[in-house]
């Protein structure tokens, strides 16, 4: 063993002494190999996203074929375990699609407006010493587990909304507290960091001359910020909103705790409904063969929604350039 090692070092020494071009060649080979190694790491995510799309599609096709694509997408009854209904009428996910869209729209409305206004505050009106504190707070808000948001909604917001609704004269037998309103409130807080971070970045990346030019033209500081800086950074703000939509749409564990989990068309703000994500999380545990396939198909529909959002975000960025 030592003998061979000595031989090797001797060989290396003679190589180094006699033929320096050999070490150079070895080094070059080493460089090429490492480059290939880095390349493999780099294409990893490409393969990952392709695998996700293909596997979900392949696993949901048999189910969609059995139930029928349109009956699945536009059916309004979801009763997977019912034995009375024919198979093609048990799996309609329109209520869940409507629930997802309803909740997402409301949360982006609340969270988007609050987020953009808060971003204006952080980027322009906030005292310099407070700024790092707020930034840290936003990082933390983004990092908190979603189940904590859901839990907070469950133990605080749901009872509060229920009591308030009853106090305002709504039928106490119907009002559950769970539903669109609480889900949207919880989600609007969860998307705040996304909206705020992107909007602040957009506002701060505008050339200083915009602001100063507006001041020189006689605008007040407020006007300079709101009428010049905000319109100038609208594409960045819009990107933050789109990312917020994506986050709200895909959020699962917060919504499943507060949406009420009843697979019906969302009616009022304070009665139970269900989003696509909540449906999957809740029923996958006990689903039988076809039921399971249909849940995967629901996940695929959700994935398509999100992919379309990402695509539109890319178009938005390209347009900006």
């Amino acid at each position, binding site marked *: 063993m030592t003998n061979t090692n000595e031989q090797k070092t001797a060989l290396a020494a003679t190589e180094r002494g006699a033929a320096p071009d050999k070490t150079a060649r070895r080094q070059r080979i080493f460089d090429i190999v490492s480059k290939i190694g880095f390349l493999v790491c780099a294409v990893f995510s490409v393969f990952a996203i392709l695998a*996700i799309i293909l596997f*979900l599609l392949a696993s949901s096709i048999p189910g969609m074929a059995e139930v029928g694509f349109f009956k699945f997408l536009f059916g309004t009854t979801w009763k997977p375990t019912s034995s009375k209904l024919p198979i093609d009428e048990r799996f309609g996910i329109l209520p869940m699609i409507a629930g997802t869209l309803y909740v997402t729209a409301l949360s982006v409305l609340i969270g988007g407006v609050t987020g953009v206004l808060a971003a204006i505050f952080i980027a322009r009106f906030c005292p310099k010493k407070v700024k790092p504190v707020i930034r840290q707070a936003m990082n933390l808000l983004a990092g908190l587990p979603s189940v904590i948001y859901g839990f907070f909604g469950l133990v605080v917001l749901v009872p509060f909304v229920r009591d308030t609704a009853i106090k305002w004269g709504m039928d106490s037998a119907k009002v559950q507290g769970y539903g669109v309103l609480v889900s949207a409130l919880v989600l609007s807080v969860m998307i705040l960091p996304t909206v705020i971070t992107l909007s602040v970045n957009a506002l701060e990346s505008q050339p200083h001359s915009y602001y100063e030019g507006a001041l020189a033209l006689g605008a007040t500081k407020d006007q300079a910020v709101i009428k010049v800086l905000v319109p100038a950074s609208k594409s960045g703000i819009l990107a933050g909103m789109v990312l917020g939509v994506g986050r709200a749409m895909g959020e699962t564990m917060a919504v499943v705790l507060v949406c009420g989990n009843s697979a019906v068309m969302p009616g009022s703000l304070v009665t139970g409904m269900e989003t696509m994500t909540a449906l999957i999380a809740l029923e996958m545990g006990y689903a039988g063969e076809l039921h399971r396939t249909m849940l995967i198909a629901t996940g695929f529909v959700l994935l398509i929604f999100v992919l379309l959002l990402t695509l539109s975000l890319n178009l938005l960025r390209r347009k900006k350039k």
Partner: protein
Amino acid sequence: MSVSTEQTTLAERLTRKSRRFRPTALLRYCSYISGAAAVAALVGIVLFVCIKGLPHVSVQLLFGKNTADNPSIAGAIVQTFKIVIVSLAIAVPVGVGCAVYLVEYTGRGNKLVKVIKTATETLAGVPSIVFGLFGMLFFVDFLGLGRGLWAGAFTITLMILPTIVTSVEESLRAVSDTYREGSFGLGATRLRTVFKVVLPSAMSGILGGVILGMGRIVSESAPLLFTAGTNGGMPTLTGSGATLAVAMYTAASTGNIEVAYAVGVVLIVLVVGLNLLATYVTGVFQKKQLGRR
């Protein structure tokens, strides 16, 4: 004379009044309120869970044996750490490798770079529950790994990969080109430059990103539901078991509100700690570098 002064004051007052009611000023006050609301939401949630939950945190709960009368989250703590270690052990090398390739080995206009970037962005936007479905289909069923540590950790790896790639890429791009040129000028190869010059200079950002990724693994629950399992108790070495976040979800959804509060406190302490650590690490390294320069 008196009339004219009165008129000017009236005119002044009118203009002043119209100035005072500019909608932009109103919007500014709204922005104050929104900023305060965003911070208040965070403080409110954290304080509420901590104050209500602290009385339920006990030694028995944290480290005791899990029985029907005495719920314990010792198993969940162990499972969380195992998943963090395994998934970081894969995601960090792959993520750093990807970022190095993007920044050091290719130009900006490269087609492949565009494809990789789009893929990473898309992967970052995929909902967590979809990762869970994929993990169930691919790792649990297709590869036959079964529910447990491996399937859970691999699924989470895919999920945090974009986070790590993005943060490492950012910190690599922040390294000044003079460093690279200096290294090349001294005769170092590209590989040597990457490992001896670029990566050490970018270490602060990389570490910060890794710690944030750690926080994300700790707080994630949806991808683990169908891949790592939901059962409480101590998991076997590579067996299935709930992580802290999953344990909190099961407790909350089965009406075990007190346990959920306690797990919530543990989670918040972990996540806040990791966040502060990330900020601290980034700051310390940056100071060191400034000193070196």
